[in-house]
């Protein structure tokens, strides 16, 4: 079990003064690294969203010059301001890649995980502070590589975030840079995952047994296992695809390819489907990497603001672990249409239906937790509550996609895009916003403004639905995804092409709705209402540390005496009972 806090080397370090570089740039303090990750993640989310806003112009007004920025994009991307299909494909692939690997994962895992988890464990830092620092800088290099690839002569990668071979093997665009960038990003996640697991096992405060762990920590632990076990196959696959591109191997190239009328002079004998298996073996667990930390945040915020314990904490934890296991054996539900036989499809459909059950249990438990509460509607709570029905829609629309027969007309249509965006945009992003508002006081010592927070939430809720709900309708009409003209080539898709305008306008309004957040964020750093240690009257350990927490985190010894969500305990006059008693009382 964990040593008392004084034993940590990180703690000793804070006695001597550190240079600016060691303190803020190459820091080993989990909180600084957490903030670095969060800021990087938020910046890339914004960037990825900007890419999408440009694409949404092309979808709504195909072939018309892009206003304002059209002329800045360059002749090889948008001659005369009119977007070329190649550029559309680049934007699409990079939007997906950036949102997933450089936006949500760094913020949800690197940011919140790094900042909050050691505090919730009552630990002075992560188990391996230097590895933690290296992990961030790997991510940074990956981000720089991805960003810089837009300026390559042939542009960035444009083969979808899935980068299916042979297209990705033979494409002339920046696929090589994409692969190198991915190798950095994967390395970063692997280093982070080892650290998270070790920290959770080794550095829990005395008395913090597994069943007293906040749900958020559980979510981070399961996430770390997913990253650790699922990413290596993709890293290997990435290296193989890189070899196919630069060293004339044929891991993913079969014999007899004829491209543009010429027989491709490669050895052949490879398998395009192998790439898909390796890719989805990561990428399905990856969707849980995007969603579990979000569920963790929502659970914390809901318990705190309903002022009562989470309902069914234990079954939530068991469901989470089961979900983690199952997420490794559902991957080929993304591949029903590749020519799968009955046995394989039966297996993967069955596992997919099974995995939906623990998700239903967790979501139900969160809903039920509200019953009997004394609900405070502050900004973090609004975002956490918004998450529930939005994630619900995302989860429900996964059902027809997981049943192979129903997937035939729906596969690779906008229905899929709508489905997973409900999960990751008004789902995960809302949870991440809840987390930003909720833990901001711990990071800065000040609260964010409530009025601006509400001005952020309500329009975001409306416009998120305005962007993503019509996608379901387009998908049911059969409109394929990744169409550089929004579908107007096809008669059947043309019927619902009009919805593209509404969605695009919603997307731009969604951008406007983020302005209150940006103002609030920067304004509150200096001018927000001062927050004490525990502004939300919360129970978990992070609120025992000063706000902002110093290097080494806690100024008192911690002895955990109870579970994570002891709110409104009968017979107590306070409506919350912290996991460890503050030193003063």
């Amino acid at each position: 079990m964990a040593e008392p806090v004084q034993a940590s080397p990180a703690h000793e370090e804070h006695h001597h003064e550190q240079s600016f570089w060691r303190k803020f740039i190459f820091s080993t303090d989990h909180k600084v690294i957490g903030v670095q990750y969060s800021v990087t993640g938020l910046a890339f989310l914004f960037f990825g969203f900007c890419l999408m806003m440009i694409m949404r112009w092309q979808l709504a007004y195909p072939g018309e010059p892009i206003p304002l920025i059209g002329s800045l994009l360059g002749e090889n991307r948008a001659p005369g301001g009119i977007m070329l299909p190649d550029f559309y494909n680049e934007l699409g692939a990079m939007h997906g890649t950036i949102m997933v690997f450089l936006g949500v994962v760094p913020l949800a895992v690197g940011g919140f995980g790094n900042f909050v988890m050691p505090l919730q464990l009552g630990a002075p830092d992560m188990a391996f502070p230097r590895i933690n620092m290296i992990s961030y800088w790997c991510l940074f290099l990956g981000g720089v590589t991805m960003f810089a690839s837009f300026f390559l002569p042939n542009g960035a990668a444009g083969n979808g975030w899935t980068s299916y071979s042979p297209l990705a093997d033979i494409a002339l665009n920046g696929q090589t840079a994409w692969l190198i960038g991915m190798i950095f990003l994967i390395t970063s996640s692997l280093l982070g995952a080892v650290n998270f697991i070790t920290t959770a096992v080794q550095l829990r405060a005395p008395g913090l047994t597994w069943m007293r762990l906040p749900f958020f920590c559980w979510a981070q632990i399961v996430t770390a296992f997913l990253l650790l076990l699922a990413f290596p196959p993709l890293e290997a696959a990435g290296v193989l695809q890189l070899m196919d591109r630069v060293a004339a191997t044929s891991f993913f190239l079969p014999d007899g390819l004829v491209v543009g009328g010429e027989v491709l002079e490669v050895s052949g004998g490879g398998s395009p489907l192998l790439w898909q298996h390796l890719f989805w073996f990561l990428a399905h667990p990856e969707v849980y990497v995007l969603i579990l930390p979000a569920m963790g945040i929502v659970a914390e915020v809901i318990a705190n603001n309903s002022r009562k314990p989470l309902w069914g904490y234990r079954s939530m934890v068991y469901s989470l672990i089961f979900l983690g296991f199952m997420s490794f054996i559902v991957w080929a539900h993304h591949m029903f249409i590749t020519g799968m036989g009955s046995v394989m499809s039966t297996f993967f459909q069955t596992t997919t239906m099974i995995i939906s059950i623990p998700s239903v249990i967790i979501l139900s438990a969160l809903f039920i937790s509200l019953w009997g509460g004394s609900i405070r509607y502050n900004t973090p709570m609004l975002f956490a509550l918004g998450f529930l029905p939005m994630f619900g829609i995302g989860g429900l629309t996964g059902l027809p996609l997981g049943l192979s027969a129903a997937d035939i007309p729906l596969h690779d249509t906008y229905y899929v895009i709508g489905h997973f965006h409900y999960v990751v945009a008004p789902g995960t992003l809302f949870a991440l916003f809840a987390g930003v508002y909720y833990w901001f006081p711990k990071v800065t010592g000040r609260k964010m403004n409530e009025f601006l927070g509400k001005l952020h939430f309500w329009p975001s809720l409306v416009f998120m639905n305005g962007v993503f709900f019509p996608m379901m309708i387009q998908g049911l009409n059969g409109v394929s995804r990744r169409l550089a003209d929004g579908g107007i080539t096809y008669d059947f898709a043309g019927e619902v092409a009009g919805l593209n305008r509404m969605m695009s306008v919603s997307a731009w309004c969604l951008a406007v709705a983020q302005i209150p957040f940006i103002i609030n964020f920067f304004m509150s750093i200096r001018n927000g209402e001062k927050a004490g240690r525990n502004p939300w009257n919360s129970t978990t350990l992070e609120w025992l540390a000063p706000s902002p927490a110093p290097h080494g985190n806690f100024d008192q010894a911690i002895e955990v005496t109870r579970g994570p969500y002891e709110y409104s305990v009968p017979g107590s006059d306070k409506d919350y009972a912290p996991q460890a008693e503050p030193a003063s009382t």
Partner: protein
Amino acid sequence: MMDAMFPAAASEHAGEIDNMIDAVHYLMLVLFIVWGAFFLYTLMRFRAARNPKADYVGVKSKASTVGEVLVAIAEGVLLLGFSIPMWAERVDEIPSEADSTVVRVVAQQFAWNVWYPGADGVFGEADPYLTDEATNPIGLDRDGAGADDIWTVNQLHLPVDKAAIIHLTSKDVIHSFNLPNMRIKQDAIPGLSIPVWFVPTKTTVQIREETGNPDYVYEIACAQLCGNSHYSMRGFLTVHTEEEFQAWLDEEASYLGDSGTDDFFN
């Protein structure tokens, strides 16, 4: 419920797939309404102003477990009763080639090459080195069984009410052969030949009457990103009566002597 949205159905199995998607959406709707009603009621009933003191225990009933079991049962029924048998019908119960129209489709950036075996009913050999984009996109060897083979670009013709078996492959990258009206979608993967089958039940003439649209066409769409012109990789399916189909084949065959190309649009 949702038929209005789907592309007009025109194959034997389209109805059952549509019904299944409908059924799943009913299930989703019920769940969403139950959850949503509970949620909204809870949010109002238990707001701090109305309920200043929270209840430590909360819900005691086991109703949610019952709900979860019901969801699991509904999913089990959809899976065992519908999806698995329907999938088996698509991939295991391929009708005999003797009773079907057998076609090969070779996808490429960015077109669908449709290949018929010709009068002898036997497909010829293909060799990548014979490929010529303009005159022989499928690399067909005209010696031997390939002498009478017929190919077209982006024009698939089939007779109505007879099973069609399409052997799908690709010359270059992965494409996906999507026939929205037939509820058919299958990736075309280089190096593999994958059969896909369906029975068209309405001729092009019939569907035009039914939709009231004299220009209605069955479209073939590419559903897998395959390069910069993926968005415009559009083909056409024409469904004929048996006699019309034979007449079309005969006409195609009559061009064979000329130049070897028969890339004309009906």
